[in-house]
């Protein structure tokens, strides 16, 4: 499973390159928020590894990234689905409040920013996944186009499959064996697998978007 670490970077860079290719024409707001999230992900990935290799604690970096990522992705979901679901802003504000509550609780319980806020990730991830699934459903049932022809569909599917799986992944890990480093390592390898799937689907959606030239 160690090969996944290399693939992680490849698919993340591929997604970012696909975004850069698609950016040539006028874009919808969700596209810019997704670009911000991809740029944050790239920065966090390389900076986190650089810090880790030097033995410098990097949990604070991942916590910061998690905060930025959740806000950016909630905005992506909002702009993708606001025309399809009227109540979406309320759902997303509710999701953001719950995520922030879990995130702050994690950090205040530990008393430091240097502990990974895994409960925040579970709660926030579940809410992003559910919101993205709602927009996907609305797109399939109310949208004017075949969903598989919609770049947004593949990006939402990436969010749904990754974030709805992080809930059982880190949720069960937290409950069952938070103290075992061996299990922690294997769990992160599973997370790498989901990560590859997520950014693979995102890259596919962005390539689709680049070919379509930004038309909704």
């Amino acid at each position, binding site marked *: 499973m160690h090969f996944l670490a290399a693939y992680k970077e490849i698919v993340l860079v591929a997604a970012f390159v696909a975004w850069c290719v698609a950016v040539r024409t006028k874009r919808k707001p969700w596209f810019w928020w997704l670009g911000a999230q991809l740029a944050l992900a790239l920065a966090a990935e390389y900076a986190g590894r650089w810090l880790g290799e030097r033995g410098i604690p990097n949990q604070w970096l991942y916590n910061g990234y998690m905060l930025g990522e959740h806000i950016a992705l909630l905005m992506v979901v909002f702009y993708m689905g606001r025309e399809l679901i009227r109540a979406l802003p309320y759902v997303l504000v509710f999701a953001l409040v719950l995520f922030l509550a879990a995130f702050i609780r994690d950090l205040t319980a530990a008393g430091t920013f240097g502990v990974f806020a895994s409960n925040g990730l579970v709660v926030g991830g579940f809410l992003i996944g559910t919101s993205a699934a709602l927009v996907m459903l609305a797109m399939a049932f109310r949208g004017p186009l075949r969903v598989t022809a919609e770049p947004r569909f593949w990006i939402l599917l990436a969010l749904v499959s990754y974030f709805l*799986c992080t809930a*059982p992944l880190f949720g069960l890990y937290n409950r069952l064996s938070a103290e*075992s480093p061996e*299990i922690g390592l294997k769990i992160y390898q*599973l997370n790498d697998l989901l990560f590859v799937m997520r950014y693979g689907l995102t890259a596919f959606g962005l390539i689709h978007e680049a070919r379509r030239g930004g038309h909704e």
Partner: protein
Amino acid sequence: MNEHDVLMTVVVAVCAMLLVIALLTIALVANNNRRMRHRAELAEAERVRETEVARAEREAVQHTLRELGRELHDNVAQLLTVAQLGANNLLEERPEPRLAAMRDALDQGVEELRRLAHGLDADLWSRRSLTDAIVAEAERIERVGRVRAHVVKAGAPLVLDADTSTILFRVFQEVVNNALKHSGADTLTLVLDGGPPATLTISDNGRGFDATRERGQGGLSAIRRRCALIGFEASCSSAPGNGCTWTLIQSPHGA
């Protein structure tokens, strides 16, 4: 729970979640495809219905015009012919200039009425081509004497079905009548090109108009609508002092 059990539980839970997401996505895509197929079928049915309605409207208009033409020919023209005979008899008894002028006016009226009745007959198109009809119309315009009408046949002969010929001829008549009434032109040039694409160009050397103004656009859109019924595209180019040119061109996609 030992480490292995914990790991297996997590792996099974994640795989189960992925399986649920995959199944739901497949169901969603299948449902969406079915919905799109249904929409496409509805759109196709609507398109077919609109085509049928347009055809029925066309047939109704043709039927009305044919009946009108028959009435003009069988009744009004016969009555005028009786009047013409009476006028001829009167003229033989009393050869007065006023009577002669009245007889000439009657002759001209009968001739115009017969031509009009003939033109309204849609079945005519099974016996003559659009080119023949346009040439005959040009000759009639020249006979009136105020405007010269040149017919230029370019490329292949115009071969169109009866429905298309009828509507295109009506559009042609409308454009020509507008030119005769409003343009002040003394020359009309009619270019017939069998294409492909089949093209009919009507130009006059009149005073022209600003084609971007509402009046021009309104006329253009009415003619465009009628041309669209038969798969033609109409465009008009004109400017004050520069005459006017109408181009009726068969669209590559047809009606």
